[in-house]
């Protein structure tokens, strides 16, 4: 019999990181759905009621990438804080991308909940 590979201790953690990263793009697009927001507002939205953001530093490069892909556009606006703020806004392509991603997400989440139903029952019994 072959020896089974010993699973890495932080496998669960890695999986969580991957999952989070995969969702971040959709979450950022969703945070811009109602209208333009600047970096800190987007972060505040992501951080309230979710643990999607591990490092705040990942959101700014992501915004710059989304801009490069034409999914968002940006505009500098003077503010009373003394620093201009860079506001991001969804483009038509960004709106479409968010809608597509949302549809995929819903389908995926639906089938996952069905698959996970037995685990819930087990929990209720315990």
């Amino acid at each position, binding site marked *: 019999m072959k020896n089974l590979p010993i699973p890495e201790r932080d496998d669960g953690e890695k999986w969580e990181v991957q999952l989070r990263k995969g969702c971040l793009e959709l979450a950022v697009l969703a945070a811009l759905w109602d209208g333009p927001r600047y*970096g800190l507002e987007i972060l505040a939205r992501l951080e309230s009621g979710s643990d999607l953001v591990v*490092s*705040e*530093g990942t959101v700014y490069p992501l915004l*710059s*990438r989304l801009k490069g892909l034409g999914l968002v556009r940006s505009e500098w606006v003077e503010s009373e*804080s003394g*620093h201009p703020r*860079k506001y991001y806004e969804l483009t038509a392509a960004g709106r479409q991308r968010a809608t597509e991603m949302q549809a995929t997400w819903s389908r995926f989440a639906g089938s996952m909940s069905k698959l996970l139903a037995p685990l819930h029952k087990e929990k209720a019994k315990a």
Partner: protein
Amino acid sequence: MSKASTGGGQEKVEAYLGELRRRLRGLEEAQVGEVLEEIRGHIAEKTAAGASIEAVMAALGNPEALAREYLTDALLARAEISRSPWRVLDGLFRWASLSMAGFLVLVVSLLGYFAGAVLVLLGVLKLFHPQTAGVWTWMDAAGTREISLRMGFYGPPAGARELLGWWVVPLGLVVGCGLLVLTTRFALWCARQYRGRRGSQ
């Protein structure tokens, strides 16, 4: 520009931004300016709201890691618009200026593109130099077998034998183009892996 509450804090912010600027070299100057302005605003507003400068910087990650994310993102974004080797190489040169990993990927990619280009060229030149272009083999003075790709501008050495004949045309084109495509995929795959690893830290 508002000053941070403590003088030492402001120095730390400037050191952070200075390091970020250095690490971002390779991006267009206008883009570097925008990144710095945005991060500066982020730090200023967070500290103004009562967070400590250390905590704000820790949440942002170190300047090197932040810069790397911008640069690999720039490479991937370019490649998503066009997969031409020029764009990929341009991105790789920027990445290579930042990290050892980027440098290694650049070296391997240069080799891949070079070999691919040589094979395609060989396939094409065979049509123009049917007598002299191709893969030639011969025994040198010391008695060892030499194999050489000849573009056909000079005649092959005396006593040399051609190996592939006309096959060099389709083979050169197919294998050469294949190498070019594979190299692009390899470079993008590396950039993605790298970005993925970075995001998990």
